[in-house]
């Protein structure tokens, strides 16, 4: 079992597609919350294989993309403070803020390191005691527990030179915001598989209960995605609205208790500002009182850096794209002004951004 080829088997895909074609008796509009779903859908050409009455829309599930311009500016301002080393996941480097990107700050002399895990930032702080290492905590419930683990470890070691800029975001509040607004008519939600591995399939019960929509927790290989779509199409046809788990090899109903406990220990829910959705209550994670010493925000205040008015890139419609209200190739900048080489908005930068997926796999404008 290699967990790759088995989930790309053409014969099994064919069978799932037959199921989808048979049950899609009327138009079905589905949203995949997660940017990794969007990429897999494009990479494997799944949209072409679906019947025309089944539509998939990309949601806000790209952590870098939903980071607000103001938060980006704060991250870049931190990078410019003498003595600060920024530890960041690679995707953040190229995202344009109001005035340049982290990559620009790096070229101008800032110490910006790409890390692959929060534990690398911990290591960096241990090895460079003379520097203040700031980890940019960007990510959903999948990333937050590992960052929490790093903070707990740092506290145990008494590591005084590690800081966290917590830009973490929680996925259910964003889903609430999209469904509550009613801006985009939807018939079902493909719930994110990796996030659900942490928070559990049960965390999505609010989707049927409050919005009357079916919700299926879905994995990321082609067969996983087709199985998720088939389940939603069948629920829609039958007029059912339930939470189903089509990613049983990873997701438990209650999620991962150890990861949840760790998150709970280090973080408390806090308001967060989302690109495209605005400020949503209890949709972010702030360090709890006992870990407040690791908060990077006071570094900015100490430098007298005020939260300046952040400017969104001119003409960029990432906000609309993130709500599913605009298909990327309908943005006037798409493929003309905004390309992966010269991105205007974050959705064209990140490997989870839906503009990048459309551009890379769908061809240019």
């Amino acid at each position: 079992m290699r967990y790759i080829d088995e989930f790309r088997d053409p014969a099994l895909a064919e069978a799932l597609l037959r199921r989808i074609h048979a049950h899609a008796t009327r138009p079905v509009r589905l949203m995949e919350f997660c940017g990794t779903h969007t990429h897999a859908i494009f990479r494997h050409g799944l949209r072409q294989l679906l019947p025309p009455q089944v539509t998939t829309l990309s949601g806000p599930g790209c952590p870098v993309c939903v980071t607000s311009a103001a938060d980006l500016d704060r991250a870049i301002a931190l990078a410019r403070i003498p003595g600060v080393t920024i530890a960041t996941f690679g995707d953040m480097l190229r995202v344009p803020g109001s005035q340049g990107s982290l990559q620009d700050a790096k070229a101008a002399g800032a110490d910006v390191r790409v890390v692959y895990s929060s534990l690398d930032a911990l290591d960096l702080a241990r090895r460079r005691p003379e520097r203040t290492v700031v980890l940019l905590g960007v990510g959903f419930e999948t990333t937050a527990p590992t960052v929490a683990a790093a903070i707990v470890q740092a506290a145990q070691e008494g590591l005084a030179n590690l800081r966290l800029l917590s830009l973490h975001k929680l996925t259910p509040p964003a889903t609430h915001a999209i469904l509550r607004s009613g801006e985009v008519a939807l018939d079902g939600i493909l719930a994110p598989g990796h996030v659900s591995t942490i928070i559990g399939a049960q965390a999505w019960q609010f989707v049927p209960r409050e919005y009357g929509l079916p919700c299926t927790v879905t994995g990321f290989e082609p067969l996983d995605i087709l199985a998720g779509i088939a389940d939603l199409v069948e629920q829609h046809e039958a007029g059912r609205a339930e939470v189903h788990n089509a990613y049983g090899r990873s997701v438990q109903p209650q999620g991962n208790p150890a990861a949840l406990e760790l998150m709970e220990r280090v973080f408390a829910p806090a308001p967060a500002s989302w690109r495209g959705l605005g400020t949503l209550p209890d949709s972010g994670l702030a360090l709890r009182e006992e870990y407040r010493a690791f908060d990077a925000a006071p570094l900015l205040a100490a430098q007298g850096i005020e939260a300046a008015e952040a400017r969104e890139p001119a003409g960029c419609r990432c906000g609309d794209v993130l709500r599913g209200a605009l298909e990327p190739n309908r943005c006037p900048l798409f493929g003309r002004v905004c390309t992966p080489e010269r991105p205007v908005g974050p959705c064209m930068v990140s490997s989870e951004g839906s503009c990048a997926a459309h551009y890379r796999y769908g061809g240019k404008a």
Partner: protein
Amino acid sequence: MSERILLAHGSGGELSHELIDRVFAPAFANPALARMDDSAVLPVPPPGSRLAFTTDGYVVRPLFFPGGDIGRLAVCGTVNDLAMMGATPLYLSAAVVLEEGFATADLERIVASMAAAAREAGVEIVTGDTKVVERGSADGCFITTAGVGVIPPGVDLSGAGARPGDAVLISGPVGDHGLAIMSQREGLRFASPLESDVAPLNGLVRALLEATPALHTLRDPTRGGLATTLNEIARQSQVEIIVEEASIPVRPAAQALAEMLGLDPLYVANEGKLIAVVAPEAAEAALAAMRAHPLGREAAIIGRVHGGRPGRVALRTTLGAHRVLDMLAGEQLPRIC
């Protein structure tokens, strides 16, 4: 020799001579280099043949990686650029930039590896240069090689040579080099069985040229990987190329690591693979010739050239859908070649 490279090793004085006499000259030993003149003096190729001339800089990190090192890479990369034109590679130059404090033992390993790769490829390193820069001004060791080769009469390969109907072949599994290097990067250090495929391809090219005169294009898919190189060929030749995802060989270990890192092996660098575009009637002969060679045992026919939409590469996925296979765009890969 001192244990570490000093600025004086690049000064042109006594220490420079010591470095050349003790490290470079014995390893690269050949008559043209032994004269120690300002240029290597070389015979002119026979009338009717043409010269191929190329250069490339190597800044790979880490310097030593599973399956190779910067020295082997610097020789093979330039040999392969010559070989892709159907040239017989003959002579290389090597310019080495060292950072002050670089371990002499590491330099000796790199030079020995260059010499071994040159022997394997049947080329001579006939001229060179060494500079030393202050600590912090370079990342250990950078190497630039240039190479000349001779294209025999009747051989005419070009990226512009692909024609509708042609078959597209790859000489083996893709992505090994880039992923082997990624697996060694700071912060990753995966225990992976993957090794770089870095190898001189001139022997494989000779076997292909002997097997069929109907070769149209050869290209080694280095930076940007198979997908990017296919796009270059499609643009240069003004043709459409359609490849079959299921036919493209990828090692399980490479596939697994790529999935974990969120990379597509089709965009990852190779240093010992070639793409061959051949006339349809010659496809089987070319495939057989590749598979008979040690560096082409896992070769495969992966697609066809079409007239359709010039400059475009499409991929038929394992599930039967078609999608555009674009050039590498905005990927963040570490330095890999």
